[in-house]
C-alpha cells in the first residue's frame, strides 16, 4: 500500500490501439514506475480495431480480435475504467473529470483518443440507419441491419468503405459504393490498379456509382434512400459513411492544449504541456496526422521510452504502406506514385494472371509502389523505399521482384530467402525478418501462433501471415515439415485437404487459381494430384456456379472413356441396375462391328465394356449408342459408377423386395454425380446376397420387413465387408438415407478417399448421427444432393457426340504427310 502512494500516477484517456500499445511498451521498460489508470468509452478491453472488417465479413468473431482482456489489466495492476468517458482535463489541479463528475488526479497524462468517422453534413444524416464504421458498436448495428434489410449504400470508395462494403455483401446485402472520384482508393492506387480492383469487386457482386456526389439522405423514421447531385435516387435501408476520419482532439483543445488538425506533439510525443503526452490518430506530428497502426506503434514506443524516463528515442515520422483486407484480393501500395517529370516508372501488366505492378523511381531510388494481384514482393519494395537504396543496378529486373533477383525460383520461399534481415515482414508491428528468424531459432518456435506470441508479427491485420509462415518454413527447413502436422494435400502446398475444403467455403473461392493464390500454392499451376482435387472440391461446393475445368481432369473424365495401355479407350454404356434389352444389345453389337472394336467384355459391375476404341472414333461410337437410347456409364468417373442388382422378388423364389426396381431407382436418381472417389452400389433381394451388396461402397440387403442399409465396404486392393448403417421400412426412406450419406461423403471426403477410408477417419457413429438420427440434417443433405444433380445430370456423351462440346479434344490438330 505504501508502495502505491509513492508511485507516480499515469492516467490514460482512450483504451484503444495506440494507448494500450504505449502502456505495454512502458511495462516492458519500467514495470513498477507508475500506478496506471485507463479510461475508455467503449465497454470492452482493448481490441484490434483493424480486424473489425473481418468481423463484419463474418470471418472472425469479436472474441477473436480481443488483444487485452480484462484479466490482462488486473494481472498488470492496471485500473481499467471501461465504459467511462473523460469530459474534461483540469490542468490547474492535474485532474481528469469523468462524465459522471468523478475527479481522478494524474502526475502524467496520456491522451490517446483516436479519431471519429467524418459524418458528411447532409440533410438526413441523423436518421436511424446512417452510421460510421469505427467500433464494435457500429459493426453490431451493421450486422443487425443485414439481417433485417436488403439494400446498403456505402459512401466512400477508400480502404474503409470497401472493407465495409465487402463485409455487408458477405452478409447478404445488396451493396452500392458511392465514390466522389472515378478511381477507387485514389490515395493508395493509381487509376489502372483502381480499375482492376473495381473489376474484381464487381465480379463479386459489388455495385459502384462513381463519380457521384451524395446530396441528401432520404427517409422519415429511418433512412429509405439516397439522392445524388445529378438528381437520381437510390433505395437504401442502411447508409455507411466512410469518407474519412477526424482526429478526436476536442477534449485537449478545451483544456487549452495547442491543436491544429490534431493535438500538436513534439518528437518525444509531448504536448505543449510537458506532463501531458499524446499518441495515436488524435496526434499531429511535424504537420502529419496518421490513420494506420504502424506509425502509431512507432509513436507508442517513443512515448513509452520517455514515460519510462529513458528519454533517448525520438520520433521522426513514418512512411506508410497499405494492404486492403478484402479476402482474396491482393493489393499493396506504398509511398508516392503520382506521375511527375522527374520520375520514372516501371510497369508490368499481365492481364491473364490479373497482375499489375508499378514501381516509381526518382533519382535511382524507389519512391512508390503499387502492386495488384501479386503482392508477395510488397515488403521488399517497401524496404528499399524506406532505405533509399540505389536500385539502378537492378533496374531491369526490379519489377519481377526479389525472387527473380535472387535465384530465380517461382515460389515464395526463395523470395523470403532472398530478403535481407532488415526487410520488414509485418508492417503493422514493424517486425523485420531478422527478428523473426532470431526468435524462431533462439526460442525454438515451431508454429505460427508461437511466432505471433513472441514477436507480434502477423498479430494485427494478418496480411503478412503468408510471409511469416514462409520465414518459418525457411528457417526451420526440414524441421518445419517434421513438426507434428496434418498431411498436406500434395507437394504443392502445406495445407491439408480439410483446410482447403474449409477455406474454399469460408472465403468463397470459386476458381482453381483463386484457391492457389489465396492459399499460397508453391507451384505455378499445381500438379496432377492437386488440380483434380481442387476441381472436385469446387464442383462439389459450388454446384451450378463453378465451371468445370477440363484441363484439371484426369484424361478418363475429360474424354468420358477409360484409357487403356495402348492409348485406346474403352466405352461402357449405362445399363440401369444391370438390366438391358434386346435392342440395346443389338445396338452394342452393331457399334462393335462398325468400328472394329476388338474386345467386348462383361464387367464386374454388370455392364458391357467395348475395349480398344480409337480416340477419334469416340464421338461417333457415342452417337450410335445415344441413338439406341443409351448414355454414358461413367465407368471412368470418380463418381457414381454402377448399381448392381439381383432379380429379387420379381423372379427369384427367395426374393423379399423388388431389388432390381430399387437399384434402377437409385441409379436414375444418382447417376452423373461426382464424388471424391468412385462409388459402387449393390442391391440384393434377400440375405443370400447375390448382388454382393456387402462389399460395395453402399449396399442394400432386402428383408421381409424392409431394407438394411450397409456402407463402407470394398473389394479392391483391400477387401472389407460393409458396416451396418440402419434399417428402414420403405424404398423412399432407403433412397433418402443413401443419398444423404453420399452427400455427406461428397462434402467431407478427401479427393481419392474411398468411402470406407472416410468412414474410418470420421467414425461410423459420427456418420450415423448425421444421416440417420438427425432427420432434419438428413433432409438437408438430401436437398443439397438433389440441387447439385440438376447441373450434373447431362449426358456427357451426347454433349460431345452431337452438341460439339470439346470437339477439338478428339481430332488431331494437323496431319503431316512428310516428316
Amino acid at each position, binding site marked *: 500500500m505504501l508502495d502505491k502512494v509513492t508511485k507516480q500516477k499515469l492516467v490514460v484517456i482512450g483504451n484503444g490501439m495506440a494507448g494500450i500499445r504505449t502502456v505495454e511498451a512502458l511495462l516492458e521498460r519500467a514495470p513498477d514506475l507508475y500506478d496506471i489508470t485507463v479510461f475508455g468509452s467503449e465497454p470492452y478491453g482493448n481490441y484490434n480495431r483493424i480486424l473489425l472488417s473481418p468481423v463484419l465479413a463474418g470471418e472472425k468473431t469479436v472474441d477473436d480480435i480481443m488483444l487485452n482482456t480484462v484479466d490482462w489489466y488486473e494481472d498488470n495492476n492496471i485500473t481499467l475504467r471501461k465504459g467511462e468517458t473523460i469530459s474534461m482535463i483540469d490542468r490547474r489541479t492535474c485532474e481528469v473529470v469523468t462524465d459522471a463528475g468523478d475527479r481522478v488526479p494524474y502526475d502524467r497524462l496520456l491522451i490517446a483518443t483516436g479519431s471519429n468517422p467524418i459524418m458528411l453534413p447532409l440533410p438526413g444524416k441523423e436518421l436511424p440507419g446512417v452510421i460510421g464504421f469505427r467500433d464494435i458498436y457500429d459493426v453490431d448495428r451493421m450486422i443487425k441491419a443485414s439481417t433485417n434489410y436488403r439494400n446498403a449504400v456505402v459512401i466512400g470508395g477508400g480502404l474503409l468503405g470497401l472493407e465495409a462494403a465487402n463485409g455487408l455483401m458477405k452478409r447478404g446485402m445488396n451493396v452500392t459504393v458511392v465514390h466522389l472520384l472515378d478511381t477507387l482508393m485514389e490515395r493508395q492506387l493509381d487509376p489502372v490498379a483502381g480499375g482492376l480492383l473495381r473489376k474484381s469487386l464487381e465480379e463479386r457482386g459489388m455495385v459502384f456509382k462513381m463519380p457521384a456526389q451524395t446530396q441528401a439522405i432520404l427517409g422519415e423514421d429511418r433512412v429509405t434512400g439516397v439522392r445524388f447531385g445529378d438528381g437520381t435516387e437510390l433505395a437504401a435501408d442502411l447508409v455507411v459513411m466512410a469518407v474519412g476520419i477526424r482526429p478526436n482532439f476536442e477534449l485537449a483543445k478545451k483544456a487549452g492544449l495547442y491543436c491544429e488538425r490534431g493535438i500538436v506533439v513534439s518528437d518525444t510525443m509531448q504536448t505543449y504541456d510537458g506532463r501531458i503526452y499524446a499518441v495515436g490518430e488524435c496526434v499531429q506530428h511535424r504537420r502529419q496526422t496518421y490513420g494506420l497502426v504502424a506509425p502509431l506503434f512507432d509513436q507508442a514506443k517513443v512515448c513509452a521510452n520517455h514515460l519510462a524516463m529513458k528519454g533517448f528515442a525520438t520520433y521522426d515520422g513514418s512512411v506508410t504502406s497499405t494492404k486492403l483486407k478484402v479476402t482474396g484480393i491482393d493489393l499493396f501500395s506504398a509511398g508516392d506514385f503520382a506521375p511527375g517529370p522527374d520520375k520514372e516508372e516501371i510497369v508490368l501488366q499481365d492481364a*491473364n494472371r490479373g497482375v499489375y505492378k508499378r514501381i516509381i523511381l526518382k533519382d535511382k531510388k524507389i519512391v512508390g509502389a503499387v502492386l495488384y494481384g501479386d503482392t508477395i514482393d510488397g515488403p521488399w519494395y517497401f524496404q528499399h523505399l524506406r532505405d533509399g537504396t540505389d536500385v539502378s543496378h537492378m533496374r531491369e529486373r526490379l519489377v519481377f521482384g526479389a525472387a527473380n533477383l535472387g535465384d530465380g525460383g517461382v515460389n515464395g520461399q526463395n523470395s523470403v530467402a532472398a530478403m535481407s534481415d532488415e526487410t520488414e515482414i509485418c508492417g503493422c508491428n514493424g517486425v523485420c525478418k531478422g527478428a523473426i528468424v532470431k526468435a524462431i531459432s533462439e526460442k525454438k518456435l515451431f508454429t505460427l501462433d508461437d511466432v505471433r506470441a513472441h514477436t507480434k508479427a502477423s498479430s494485427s491485420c494478418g496480411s503478412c501471415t503468408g510471409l511469416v509462415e514462409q520465414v518459418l518454413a525457411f528457417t526451420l527447413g526440414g524441421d518445419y515439415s517434421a513438426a507434428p502436422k496434418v498431411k498436406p494435400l500434395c507437394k504443392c502446398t502445406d495445407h491439408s485437404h480439410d483446410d482447403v475444403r474449409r477455406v474454399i467455403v469460408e472465403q468463397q473461392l470459386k476458381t482453381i487459381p483463386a484457391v492457389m493464390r489465396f492459399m499460397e500454392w508453391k507451384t505455378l*499451376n*499445381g*500438379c496432377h494430384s492437386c488440380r483434380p482435387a481442387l476441381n472436385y472440391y469446387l464442383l462439389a461446393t459450388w454446384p451450378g456456379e463453378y465451371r468445370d475445368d477440363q*484441363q484439371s481432369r484426369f484424361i478418363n473424365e475429360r474424354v468420358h472413356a477409360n484409357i487403356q*495401355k495402348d492409348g485406346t479407350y474403352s466405352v461402357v454404356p449405362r445399363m440401369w441396375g444391370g438390366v438391358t434389352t434386346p435392342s440395346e444389345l443389338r445396338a452394342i453389337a452393331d457399334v462393335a462391328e462398325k468400328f472394329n472394336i476388338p474386345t467386348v467384355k462383361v464387367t464386374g459391375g454388370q455392364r458391357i465394356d467395348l475395349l480398344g476404341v480409337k480416340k477419334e472414333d469416340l464421338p461417333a461410337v457415342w452417337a450410335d449408342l445415344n441413338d439406341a437410347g443409351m448414355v454414358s456409364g461413367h465407368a471412368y468417373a470418380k463418381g457414381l459408377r454402377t448399381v448392381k442388382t439381383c432379380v429379387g422378388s420379381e423372379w427369384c423364389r427367395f426374393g423379399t423386395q423388388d431389388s432390381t426396381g430399387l437399384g434402377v431407382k437409385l441409379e436414375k436418381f444418382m447417376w452423373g454425380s461426382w464424388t471424391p472417389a468412385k462409388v459402387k452400389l449393390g442391391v440384393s433381394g434377400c440375405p443370400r446376397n447375390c448382388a454382393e451388396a456387402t462389399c460395395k461402397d453402399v449396399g442394400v440387403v432386402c428383408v421381409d420387413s424392409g431394407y438394411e442399409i450397409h456402407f463402407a465396404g470394398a473389394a479392391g486392393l483391400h477387401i472389407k465387408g460393409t458396416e451396418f448403417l440402419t434399417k428402414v421400412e420403405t424404398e423412399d426412406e432407403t433412397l433418402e438415407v443413401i443419398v444423404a450419406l453420399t452427400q455427406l461423403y461428397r462434402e467431407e471426403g478427401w479427393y481419392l478417399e474411398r468411402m470406407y477410408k472416410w468412414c474410418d477417419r470420421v467414425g461410423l457413429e459420427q456418420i450415423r448421427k448425421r444421416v440417420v438420427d438427425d432427420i432434419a440434417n438428413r433432409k438437408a443433405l438430401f436437398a443439397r444432393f438433389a440441387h447439385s444433380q440438376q447441373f450434373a445430370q447431362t449426358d456427357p456423351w451426347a454433349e460431345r457426340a452431337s452438341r460439339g462440346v470439346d470437339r477439338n479434344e478428339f481430332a488431331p*490438330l*494437323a*496431319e503431316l504427310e512428310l*516428316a
Partner: protein
Amino acid sequence: MTSWIEIGALDDIPRLGSRVVRTPSGNIAVFRTESDEVFALDDRCPHKGGPLSQGIVHNKRVTCPLHNFVIELANGQAVAPDEGCTHTHPAKVENGVVWLSVRQAAAVS
C-alpha cells in the same frame, strides 16, 4: 537446317492442354502452357509408351496418364526419381499461329 511447318492456330490448343499432330513416324504432342508457350514432344512416354498428349499439364511439365511419370516439356526429360527421355521437336508461335519443325529421329540418333 530447320524447316518450319505451320500446324494450326494457338487457340485450337487449350491452355494447359495439348493436341496431337499425326506424322508417318508417329504422333507428336503439341503442348500449350498457361503463358502460351508451346512445346512439341513425341507422344510417347519413356516409361511404357503412354500418350503424353492425354496427360495433365502443369507449369512446363506434363504427367503421363498411364503411370504418372512427370516429363519436362522443354527437354523431354523425366523428372527424378523417374528416368527416361522423350524426343522433342522445335515449336514456336508467331502471331497466333503454331509452327513445328519435325526432327527426324534418324537424323538425331
